C-alpha cells in the first residue's frame, strides 16, 4: 500500500504573503443631469449619479444590497433621444447622456405609478427606505391622487387571489370601484405574518430568499398580470414550505407586507408605538460570525430585531436565530 507523499511533504510556504490584485482603473463618465454637468465613475447607475448630486429620486423596489429588478418604475427619468423613460436604478450612465429627472413626462409617470399603487395596494406603511421619507411624501410631491380611480373594491376572500388562473380574469362590468390586491393577512406561524394587501410586488423578498441572500427559494412570483402574487409552492403555508425563517424577506420588504408577528399583533392591538421605542445595536450571541443586531425595544421588551443595511458582515441579513431567537432575553419567569 502506497501513501501519497504529499501528505508528508507539504509544499513550501511562500516567503511573503500574496499581494492584493491591483484595483481596476475606473474611468469617469461625463453626462448632464437636469442641465448640470456631472462626472461619475463608469458603471454607475443614473440613480447613483443622481444621489451623488443630491437629487432626491424616489425608489420602491430598489435596494443597494439586491440586484435591481426595475419593476416599480417610480424612479424613471427621461433620457434625451430615448422613446421611453428609463429606470434610474438600473440604467447605467453613458458618456454624453442627457438626463432629466423632473420633466413633465417624468413627473407624470411618477405620479401615475404612485396613484396606481395607492389605488390598488395598502401603502400606508410603505417607503421609508428612501433617505427622506415615505410614499406619502412622494405622493404629495407629485400631487398624486389615488382616489381618482374610485373607491376600493371589496377585498378578496382568503386564498382567492392565490387560485386565480392566468388569462382568465372576470372582466370589469362597470362597477364604480377600483380593483385592489386586498385580502386577509396570512398568519400560519409564530414568527412572522404575510399581509399581501400591502404587497407592491417589488420582488425584493423573492430576491432575498433566492440568490441575492439566502438561497432558500421558498417563495417566487406566481400567477400573471394583476393576479401575480408572491407564493410558496402551491400556496402551502410557511411551515410546509421550504422557508427557514431567516426573516430576510422581512428585512427587505418596503411596505410592511412582511412583518414580525409581534409587531403585527401590537399594531392590531394599537400598542405599537415607534416613538416609544429605542434601538440598541449589539452582536448576535449565537455563533462566531458576529452579526450586528439592532434590538427594537418598547416597554423593556424586544419587539423586533433588524440588522443595519450598511453592516459589512450582514448587509442587513440575518438567520432565524439572530432575527427571532431573542425570547430568552426576556424570559423573566422564576428560576
Amino acid at each position, binding site marked *: 500500500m502506497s501513501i501519497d507523499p504529499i501528505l508528508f511533504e507539504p509544499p513550501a510556504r511562500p516567503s511573503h504573503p500574496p499581494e492584493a490584485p491591483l484595483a481596476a482603473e475606473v474611468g469617469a463618465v461625463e453626462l448632464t443631469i437636469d442641465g448640470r454637468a456631472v462626472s461619475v465613475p463608469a458603471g454607475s447607475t443614473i440613480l447613483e449619479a443622481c444621489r451623488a448630486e443630491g437629487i432626491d429620486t424616489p425608489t420602491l423596489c430598489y435596494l443597494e444590497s439586491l440586484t435591481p429588478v*426595475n*419593476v*416599480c*418604475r*417610480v424612479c*424613471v427619468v427621461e433620457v434625451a433621444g430615448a422613446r*421611453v*423613460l428609463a*429606470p434610474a436604478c*438600473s*440604467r*447605467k450612465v453613458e458618456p454624453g447622456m442627457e438626463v432629466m429627472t423632473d420633466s413633465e*413626462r417624468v413627473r*407624470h*409617470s411618477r405620479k*401615475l*405609478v404612485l396613484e*396606481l*399603487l395607492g*389605488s*390598488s395596494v395598502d401603502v400606508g406603511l410603505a417607503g421609508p427606505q428612501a433617505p427622506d421619507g415615505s410614499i406619502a411624501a412622494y405622493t404629495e410631491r407629485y400631487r398624486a391622487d389615488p382616489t*381618482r*380611480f*374610485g373607491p376600493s373594491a371589496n377585498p378578496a376572500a382568503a386564498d382567492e387571489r392565490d*387560485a386565480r*388562473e*392566468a*388569462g*382568465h380574469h372576470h*372582466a*370589469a*362590468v*362597470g*362597477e*364604480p370601484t*377600483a*380593483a385592489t390586491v386586498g385580502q386577509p393577512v396570512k398568519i400560519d406561524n409564530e414568527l412572522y405574518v404575510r399581509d399581501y394587501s400591502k404587497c*407592491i*410586488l417589488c420582488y425584493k423578498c423573492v430576491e432575498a430568499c433566492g440568490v441575492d441572500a439566502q*438561497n432558500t*427559494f*421558498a*417563495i*417566487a*412570483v*406566481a*400567477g*400573471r*398580470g*394583476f*393576479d*401575480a402574487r408572491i*407564493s*410558496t*409552492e*402551491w400556496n*402551502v403555508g410557511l411551515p*410546509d*414550505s*421550504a422557508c427557514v425563517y431567516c426573516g430576510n424577506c422581512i428585512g427587505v420588504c418596503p411596505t410592511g407586507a412582511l412583518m414580525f408577528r409581534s409587531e403585527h399583533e401590537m399594531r392590531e392591538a394599537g400598542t405599537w408605538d415607534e416613538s416609544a421605542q429605542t434601538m440598541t445595536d449589539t452582536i448576535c450571541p449565537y455563533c462566531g460570525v458576529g452579526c450586528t443586531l439592532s434590538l427594537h425595544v418598547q416597554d423593556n421588551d424586544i419587539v423586533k430585531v433588524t440588522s443595519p443595511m450598511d453592516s459589512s458582515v450582514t448587509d442587513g441579513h440575518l438567520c432565524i436565530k439572530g432575527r427571532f431567537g431573542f425570547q430568552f432575553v426576556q424570559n423573566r419567569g422564576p428560576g
Partner: protein
Amino acid sequence: MDLHVVAPLASPAERDAVDAVLSPLIGPPASGWHGGVRDSKADGHIARGGHEARSHRDLLIPALHGIQARVGFISQPALAYVCRRLSVPPAEAYGVATFYALFATTPRPPLVAHVCDDIACRLAGAEDVCSDLGRSLGPAGQPTRDGRATWLRSPCLGQCERAPAALFTSAGESPTSFAVAPIDAAGIVARFDAPRIEAVGPVAAPTPDDRLAVARRSVPQAGDDGLRILARIGRIDPLSLDDYRRHGGYEALARAIALGPERVISEVTDAKLVGRGGAAFPTGRKWAAVAAQITRPHYLVCNADESEPGTFKDRALLEDDPFATVEAMTIAGFATGAERGYLYIRGEYPLAEARVTAAIGAARAAGLLGPDALGSGVSFDIEIRRGAGAYICGEETALFESIEGKRGEPRNKPPFPVEVGLFGKPTTVNNVETLANIPAIVLEGGAAFAAIGTDGSTGPKLFCLSGNVERPGIYEVPFGVTLRELLDLGGGVRTGRTIQAILLGGAAGVFVGPEALDTPLTFEGTRAIGATLGSGVVMVFDDTADLVGTLRRIAAFFRDESCGQCVPCRVGSVRQEEILARLAAGRPRGSAADELALLRDVGQAMRDASICGLGQTASSAIESAFRQPGMMSL
C-alpha cells in the same frame, strides 16, 4: 441545491410523462437526488445536484407540456418530480406553471375546447358561440356532465381568416391538439360527444388535388404567379423536402455558403429589410451586430410566437412551406455565427409545429442541418420550443426567459439581445416572415430586393386581412399599395355595408377611419397618419360592428396578458379596463370627458414607463379610437 420537496410521490403515469420528455435528452434519473430510486450506497453520502443538474432548467417548460398533455393538468406530485429531475426549487416551478394560460394547476377534464372570443372572432359571432356553449354545457371551465370535457374562452388563436375558431386539446396516453375553424357551438358539442376525439392527423398533408383549395382558404392568392413569399403555398407538399427542392429550395443556402457570412449580411443590409414582427428594426444591422460579438456561442431565435390578435401569416408560412423557415434559419445562423437556433412557436399552433418539426427532421436526415450542413463544414441545428399561452412571450426578451424555463417576464433593455440575449449570449431574433425574405435576398441580391416597394419600405409584405370583408386571408403585396387596394384584393366589405373603422397592427395597433383608405401601406405612410403597420394586421369593422365591445375586449386582453412585472402595465391595464367598462355601462365617474382624461393619463404612463412593448402599446388602439372624430359615441 438542497431542494425542499414535500409533495407525495409521483404516480407511474406522471413519472412517465416527465421521463418521456427528459430522458431522451438528459438520460434517466442518475440517483435518488434526481428523482430516481434511492440507493443508500450510491446516494447516502454524496450530495448531487449542483451546476450540471441546474443547467437543464431550460427543459422545465417542455416537461410541463409533457405533464399537461398526459395528465390534463400540472399535478403537485408531477411538478415535484420535475423539480427533482431538473434541480428547480418547487416554488419557482410553481411560479412558472401558473404563468402560462395553457397550463392548468388544478384538475381539469382531459378534453378542452379553447374557444376564441378575441376581436376577429367576435366579429364572426364568437360571443354567440360562447353563450350557446354556456347554455348547452354550462359556464366556462365547468366540466361537462360526464366529466370528460370542458370549454374555456381564449385570446386570439391566429385563425382569424376563418373565424370563429376553437382549439381542442385532448390529454391522455396519446394526446392530441388541433384547431377547427370556422366552428359553432354545435360543432364543439359534437366533438365532445364523439366516442373519442377525432385523431386529426395534423402532419398529414392534403392530397395534391385539393392542396391548392385548402391553402386558398387562408391564402386566397395561393397558386397565383408573381408571389415571392407565398410562391410555394399550396403548390408543394409541405412534408416533402424533394418537392421543396424542386421549387427552388436550398439554392439560397448553397449560394449563401458560397458568398460567405460577411457578404450575406451586406446583401441583407443593402436590401434594407426590416423586421416584420412589428418593431421594424433593420435586419442587416442586427445580424452585423451579432456577427461582430466576440463572446461565444451566438444563438439564433426564430420568433414564431405569433400572438398579436389578428395576425396569422406566420402560421400559414409554417404550415404550408415549413422548409423555407428551416432554410432561412440556417442561412441566418451561418451569417451570424450561430450554431444553434431555437424556433419558439406558440402553443396554439399544433399543425404548424408538427409540420416544422417534420421539416427539421427531414432536413437533418438529408444532412442539411447538423454538424456539416450541405457538406460545407457549416454546423447548425434547430430546436423547437413550444409556448404555453402567453402573448408576452412574443416580446424577444420574454421569449428568452421562456426558453430558459422561466416566467415570461421581459428584461430591461439595454443591454440588447445582440449583446446579451438567450442564455446571456449574443442572439439574433427574427420573425418568421422576416426570415422568409432571406432566401430571395441571397439569390437575387439586396439591390434587387430594395427595388421592390418604396424607398422607406422595401420588399414584399404580408397582410393579415380579417373582419368584415368578403375574402379574409393573407395577402402578399409590394410595399406601397394603399389600404383601399388591399381591401379590394379581399373583395371589400360585404355588399350594402360601409366601413366604420379599420384596425391596423392588431391590439397593439391603431384604429383608422374610412378616410385613411388611400394611405399607402408602408412604414412611412402609416407613420404619417399616426398609425402603424405592426405585424401586418388589417381588420375591418363595418357599420354593424360593436366597437365599444371590441375596445373592451382589447382592454381585457391586455389585462390578461400583462406579465405583471411593472406597475404601469400591471395596474394600468386594470384601470383602463375599468374605465372602459364604466363608460360602456353609462356610469362614468364624473363626466365621460373626465373618464377619457383619466384614460389618457393612464395610457401615457403605460407608454412612457412600462418595461416592454406590451405595456407601451397597451393603450394604443383604445386611445386611437377615441382620437378619431366621431368613431366612438359614448
